[in-house]
């Protein structure tokens, strides 16, 4: 895309029928760090790479809980993302107040998209000369009466229903992984799903490794309220103590934020490296977890010590991409 005379404001069409400002807004999403969303028959999972502006600062949050049954991952202008997050939280709360039930996801993403057009959210920024489009893409993951969902809300005001999706910097590599693997997601267990998400994320990571510090994962499902896994909570998945580590979720309260230890196991499994022993402070199904971790650490190229199942072959592929 090059600068041209039709891209000054969002109310100008180009002769080819494009509105460049909207397309530029979509570019902003690609500047953000990678985020993936995928779902099985019972769960939806989000995984994101967190970026830190400098070594001295903390990592930017990318996953936000909207309601007990829904959450989002953002990529792009974080400030815009927070506004949409606040809007979504408010709408969900109002829905609960009036209808005493969870807001259906399809309706929520449509309302967010309409904000662009109808003096609601995203589209209105694409149709008023004094406004600008939102510079953030949302992956909305949730579980409602119709089952688990993964939606993508685009700055253009479009929204799409996905089986799996990736956005952000170098997300094409993640998309390739997902395209290869998505057929096995439907029947996957929660652990496998998280592993897939982390594998996909690993593909977008050009240099460096997944650690429990630089990524965050969230899960939501039928009997699982939206739960954010960071730091400790993620550690088991990274280390690969997995199959039985899924019990962690049963112990989580709605919206519980678990730190380093819980995330690390998952990340280590993906890395095929020694378990981040220091990070694993969370109480786990002790013997099994340690056993699993040791197995994963010893295994070469075989990341899943526990629950095998489909999609494991893909585990090696992104490492080599």
């Amino acid at each position: 895309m090059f600068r041209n005379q039709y891209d000054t404001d969002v109310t100008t069409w180009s002769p080819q029928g494009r509105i460049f400002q909207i397309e530029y807004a979509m570019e902003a999403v690609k500047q953000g760090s990678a985020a993936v969303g995928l779902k099985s028959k019972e769960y939806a999972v989000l995984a994101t790479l967190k970026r830190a502006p400098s070594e001295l600062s903390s990592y930017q949050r990318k996953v936000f809980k909207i309601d007990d049954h829904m959450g989002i991952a953002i990529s792009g202008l974080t400030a815009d993302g927070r506004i949409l997050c606040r809007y979504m939280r408010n709408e969900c709360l109002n829905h609960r107040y009036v209808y005493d039930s969870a807001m259906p996801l399809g309706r929520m993403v449509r309302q967010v998209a309409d904000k662009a057009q109808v003096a609601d959210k995203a589209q209105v920024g694409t149709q008023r000369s004094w406004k600008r489009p939102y510079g953030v893409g949302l992956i909305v993951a949730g579980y409602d009466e119709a089952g688990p969902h993964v939606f993508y809300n685009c700055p253009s005001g479009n929204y799409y229903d996905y089986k799996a999706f990736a956005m952000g910097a170098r997300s094409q590599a993640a998309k390739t992984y997902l395209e290869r693997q998505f057929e096995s997601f439907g029947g996957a267990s929660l652990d496998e799903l998280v592993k897939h998400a982390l594998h996909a994320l690993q593909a977008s990571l050009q240099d460096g490794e997944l650690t429990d510090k630089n990524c965050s994962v969230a899960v939501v499902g039928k009997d699982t309220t939206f739960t954010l896994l960071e730091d400790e909570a993620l550690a088991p998945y990274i280390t690969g103590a997995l199959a039985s580590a899924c019990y962690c979720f049963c112990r989580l309260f709605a919206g519980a934020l678990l730190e380093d230890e819980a995330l690390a196991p998952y990340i280590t499994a993906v890395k095929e490296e020694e378990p981040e022993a220091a990070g694993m402070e969370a109480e786990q199904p002790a013997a099994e977890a340690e056993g699993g971790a040791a197995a994963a650490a010893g295994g070469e190229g075989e990341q899943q010590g526990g629950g095998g199942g489909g999609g494991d072959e893909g585990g090696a592929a992104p490492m080599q991409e």
Partner: protein
Amino acid sequence: MASALPMRAQVPSVGGEHRQHASWSPYDDNGGTVVAVAGDDYCVVAASTRMSTGYSILTRDKTKILRLNPKCVVASAGMQADMETLHKMLHMRHVTYQFNHRKPMSCPATAQLLSNTLYYKRFFPYYTFNLCAGLDEEGKGAVYTYDAIGSYERVGYGCQGSGKELIQPVLDNQLKAASPLVLPQQQWLSSLPLEQAVDLVKGAFVSAGERDIYTGDDVEILIITKEGVRTDRLELKRD
């Protein structure tokens, strides 16, 4: 009675004849009693479960307690429609608070929020008589007592509702300090052991159930400690 049809009330006029006057009240009293007792490291909250209107019973199993989080509950007697709306409001505010502060609301914070929420409707009040109870930031039991428009005060024990006049003297007798002249000044005695406090509350409800027609059926009892919230249920007479 908050009935749909206008009621004709007899109003005596100056000349001595009765003038007919339509009157409809948006309020109704559904009865019931709530009690809370704070201890050094616990708080006992109890509420009767009968809901009535006039001389009829609407249901024997209606909860009057809103559990905001493991450290704080709100118990309300009075009009249940207003109670439900008030509880919904508080719950939504609590969810929003947790999004913004990333932690649950403390009991003192909830107490202030409840006061503000009630005063907001100063000129069309919630017909609810509330107690906010739980553990404060130091882990000690806390009870706050309110009037309908939000005036509140922290106390060591409190009761509200139709059985208030029957129960309050009993609690005063057992829990209040002997005299305001005693030094160091304390308004209530240092706490009873938990089991004794629960027995006191149960005894108070049984007694109130004898004479207050609106208190009966069951009592829902919550025992709040740092370990969490434990529930108990006391059966009362169904008459």
